[in-house]
């Protein structure tokens, strides 16, 4: 016992994150499935918009479409990330180990956030080339778009990881995740779409709309992640 090292929460967090990333590097399962799924969603978008004609302004709905693709893809990823843990008995092992419960939450949530960001790096340029390359609109700077997507992704990963931990223990896993996840992130989606559309269309005075909406989204992130953090202990122990 005298040899016992004092392991900080940060080390525990790093270990969980490291485990997820190593597993992903070996199997590459999450990224391929999420990436392919996002691609399929883009194809569906093309089908849906194929009869819209040339007078149709794609900039007005591009933000919404982009976020929709991300939401669908994230639900797939969130589900998989926790179903894996459960199937391989990893979640139980994690619970047996002396790791603080909130650390498990942050470890899983950050892992999911990283995968979500990687998928976005793939599909956002693709989305631009497929739908927006012919557009004449002068959009705002790209970093504003990236920032809005990042704030949205943080909320999606945080709330999603929390809810997926519940839904893996239910019958009808993916449906239960959807019915909890979509109404709960609804406010976030609404403000992020407003921010994205503000940047893409870049109407006069768009920065003000953008920052207001981003502040609302950040507020949502802080409140929901705080609530999830406080309640995570109850659901993971149940």
């Amino acid at each position: 016992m005298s040899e016992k090292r004092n392991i900080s929460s940060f080390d525990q967090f790093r270990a969980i994150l490291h485990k997820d990333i190593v597993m992903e590097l070996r199997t590459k399962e999450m990224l391929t499935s999420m990436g392919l799924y996002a691609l399929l969603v883009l194809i569906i978008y093309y089908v849906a918009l194929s009869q819209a004609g040339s007078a149709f302004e794609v900039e007005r709905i591009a933000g919404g479409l982009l976020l929709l693709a991300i939401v669908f893809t994230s639900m797939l990823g969130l589900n998989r990330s926790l179903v894996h843990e459960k199937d391989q008995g990893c979640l139980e092992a994690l619970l047996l180990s002396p790791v603080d419960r909130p650390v498990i939450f942050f470890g899983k949530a950050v892992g999911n956030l990283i995968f979500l960001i990687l998928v976005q790096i793939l599909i956002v340029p693709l989305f631009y080339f497929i739908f927006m390359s012919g557009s004449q609109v002068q959009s705002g700077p790209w970093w504003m778009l990236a920032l809005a997507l990042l704030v949205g992704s943080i909320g999606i990963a945080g709330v999603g990881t929390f809810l997926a931990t519940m839904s893996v223990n239910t019958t009808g896993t993916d449906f239960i995740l959807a019915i909890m996840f979509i109404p709960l992130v609804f406010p976030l989606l609404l403000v992020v779409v407003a921010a994205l559309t503000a940047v893409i269309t870049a109407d006069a005075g768009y920065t003000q709309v953008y920052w207001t909406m981003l502040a609302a989204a950040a507020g949502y992130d802080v409140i929901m992640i705080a609530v999830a953090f406080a309640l995570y202990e109850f659901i993971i122990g149940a």
Partner: protein
Amino acid sequence: MSKQLKIAIILMVIGALLTTLAFFMAFYTARVQGFGTVVSDQPLDTAFALAPPSMQPTDGIAYERPWLSQKIFYFHVPVAEASFLIFTIAAIFALLFLLRKDKKYDTRSRIAMETAFVFVVATMITGVLWTRASWGVWWDWEPRLTTYFIMMILMIAYFVVRNSVGDEERAATYGAVFCLIAWVDAPLSFIITRLIPSNHPVVFQSGMDTTNLIPFIIAQIGMLMIGYAIYVLRVTEESMHERIELLKERLEA
């Protein structure tokens, strides 16, 4: 029959009488007032111009059609406020369950959620009819309606989640956790019309006549009595159900 049940039934009858009284008062004593304004980008009824000139505001925005449709107010708002209140009570019981791990709080929380859901559905029905009568559309995606709709979906999700968990204790914990996280939407829905300008009127800010306040308060008290009575009836029913299960087990043993 327990004392609580007797009180509940008496309250149910009084509540029914009070809400009926409020209904007649709404038609006979309450005056028509210009509540709120309509600024909608959707084509609405052409009725606005028909309000008498004495009631038209000078700044050029027409008041919503305040005639008969306004009478729904005396049922719609009490039901809606009761639904927020009962949802809050359900969330408090959920919190108590998580802190004390006592099954009785979970049952109370679940039954309060059921009662709140009945009131939410009632609010939705009266609200949709009022929207149609007053704004000329069945539904409008404006902040109050949207957040309230989301609240209804969250409540449905609560029951779906509970039913999809096999283990009873786990179902109780998940239900309580989801109830708390879903409750965040209730205060949001309540204050959103005060934060963001919307079509949904905030009647108490525009000032109300005493002649209108009285039927409203009567209806509110009556509705809360009915809500409490429904809650107690459901609790009694649940305890009866538990006793039956217990007796059946003993018979089989």
